[in-house]
């Protein structure tokens, strides 16, 4: 069966430090991959999505970037964190035909 992992689960970083959040999927090939930020009362905001290795689409211009170095690996990065980058980050995958998405456990990022 398919599983999706995210790490770390929680992270506290100072302003101006770099960021790397990792997401990996097991049990499927060539998934669509997504990064979301979840904020209370505001739902899920799609940040990036990828339909293949090296193919990244950005939904919201911001301080973050994403990369997909392998088929089932999706990385969210920043060179210099801002206070406004604090939040709960979710990774998700979906198949090529069916559109339902399956979510990882999330990473709670606090920028101090």
């Amino acid at each position, binding site marked *: 069966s398919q599983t999706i992992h995210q790490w770390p689960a929680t992270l506290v970083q100072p302003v101006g430090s770099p960021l790397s959040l990792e997401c990996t999927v097991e049990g499927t090939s060539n998934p669509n991959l997504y990064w979301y930020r979840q904020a209370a009362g505001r739902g*899920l905001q799609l940040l990036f999505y990828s339909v293949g290795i090296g193919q990244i689409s950005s939904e919201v211009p911001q301080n973050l970037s994403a990369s997909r170095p392998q088929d089932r690996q999706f990385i969210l990065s920043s060179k210099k964190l801002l206070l406004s980058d604090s939040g709960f980050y979710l990774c998700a995958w979906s198949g090529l035909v069916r559109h*339902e*998405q399956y979510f990882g456990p999330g990473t709670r990022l606090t920028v101090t």
Partner: protein
Amino acid sequence: AQRVTQPEKLLSVFKGAPVELKCNYSYSGSPELFWYVQYSRQRLQLLLRHISRESIKGFTADLNKGETSFHLKKPFAQEEDSAMYYCALVTDSWGKLQFGAGTQVVVTP
């Protein structure tokens, strides 16, 4: 523009009472909609997909294209239904989802 509206931020119901979570959408094409649920300390998970017309955990949701709605209903709420519920709309052929702001459901005994 595509949009998903969940007008209720919080819905408090008594155990055994009916519960209905509202979801309205704006989409120019043929909509594909989902309901997702997030229980406390658990990951976000798929609850219902409109194309399946299924009932999961006693919940049903009917797509009403005339009213552009996809409301989630359960005739008798249970305490374990307490959770955050999100309505989501597929917005392109790649499967990108537009989520509503979510409705927190609290079922009290």
